[in-house]
């Protein structure tokens, strides 16, 4: 059980389903767009993300084991209630990890590459970070070990979450049944998360359960009248995989060197934050969009 690796087991499924999505799109049976260089970058990022993770794996494992040694409770890996509990707690942890990764530049620098494709297909799911270990977000899962969940259990549940999130990166599935859309993260919800339309920014951070977004006020349904435009606010004008992996880190470092007095803002502010307000953040973009909507809306008739 301790050697169970959901991501490794699912890899053949990833390959087969990408082939299926491409072939069905080619035959006109499914909605999907693939651009060869974009696909190469997505799959290349996925291919080397595991290798990049090895650089910090020792630190992550050692930290988790150390925290587990000081655990509060004994949680058996064989108990069903323990799996139910870790399912919920890991998914809640993922929500906050994901939200932090979007709302603070230091962690956005590690996560942004997942959003750099202007496409939304199964290969996009594999456009994984190379610098997540360096960003240190793995520390957010340490409280689970402190509670007493065995490290192997945490790793397995993280793997299950990652595999779950693979299939939702598609335009081929429009909507799931209503009850499913209400509870789970779905292709429709996650399309919104990958969209760069101002209305859709900073929403739907869920991993498996969409209930966290509903609970914490970040849920945004996909609207038929506003199709998703994918990518980042400032799309990349390159397919250079090194630029894709490191551009935000380099941009952040350049900002800190140029404006050392405002270093904290450039590192821990929202993505797009600037000391003179000359750049846009998701907050300013959304505010401008709301103003534009209000101006465009017809004025109510007098007396009504």
């Amino acid at each position, binding site marked *: 059980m301790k050697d169970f690796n959901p991501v490794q087991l699912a890899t053949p499924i990833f390959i087969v389903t990408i082939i299926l999505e491409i072939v069905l799109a080619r035959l006109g049976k499914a909605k999907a767009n693939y*651009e060869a260089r974009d696909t190469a970058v997505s*799959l290349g990022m996925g291919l080397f993300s595991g290798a990049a993770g090895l650089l910090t794996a020792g630190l992550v494992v050692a930290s988790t084991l150390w925290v587990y040694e000081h655990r509060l409770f004994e949680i058996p890996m064989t108990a069903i209630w323990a799996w139910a509990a870790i399912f919920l707690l890991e998914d809640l942890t993922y929500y906050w990890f994901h939200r932090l990764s979007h709302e603070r530049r230091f962690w956005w620098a590690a996560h942004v590459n997942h959003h750099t494709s202007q496409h939304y297909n199964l290969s996009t799911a594999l456009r994984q970070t190379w610098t997540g270990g360096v960003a240190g977000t793995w520390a957010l899962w340490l409280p689970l070990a402190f509670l007493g969940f065995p490290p192997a259990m945490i790793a397995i549940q993280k793997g299950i979450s990652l595999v779950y999130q693979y299939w939702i990166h598609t335009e081929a599935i429009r909507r799931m049944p209503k009850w499913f859309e209400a509870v789970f993260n779905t292709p429709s919800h996650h399309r919104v998360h990958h969209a760069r339309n101002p209305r859709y920014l900073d929403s739907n951070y869920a991993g498996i359960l969409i209930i966290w977004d509903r609970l914490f006020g970040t849920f945004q349904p996909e609207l038929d009248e506003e199709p998703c435009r994918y990518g980042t606010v400032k*799309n990349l004008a390159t397919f250079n995989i090194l630029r894709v992996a490191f551009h935000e880190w380099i941009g952040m470092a350049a900002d800190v060197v140029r404006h050392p007095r405002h270093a904290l803002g450039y590192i821990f502010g929202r993505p797009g934050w600037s000391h003179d307000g000359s750049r846009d953040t998701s907050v300013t973009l959304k505010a401008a969009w709301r103003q534009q909507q209000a101006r465009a809306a017809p004025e109510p008739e007098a007396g009504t």
Partner: protein
Amino acid sequence: MDKAYLIQLAASTAAVSVLVGLAAWAKIARPVGPLNLARAQELLSEEFPGRSLDQVWVATDGAGALARSGGMALVLCRVGDGFAARQIPWAQAVSSSFRNGRLRIDLSDISAPVATISLPSWPPKDLAA
């Protein structure tokens, strides 16, 4: 590195090559025809909402566009089957190098280093000031 890991990496690399080849073969990229003035204006408005467009120059091959908006130049360039946009000071756009009908604009951005736009001439005589 252990042998099993290297074998796994080699197999994954082969699979990635096959998938990229399949994606190229399928020709299912987004249909993106050459830009015309209306489409360029529409994209620029999407990228820079609320900004006035004083004048727009569309690339002769339809793969990009350049607009003047006050003191700024709004640059639109094709990336695969999509577009990327950046803004730079107008003076910087005017002084960009122009050779053999191609304007090479340094965007000074690590994620969008350079935009190349085909134009009949540059800078425009009436707006070069």
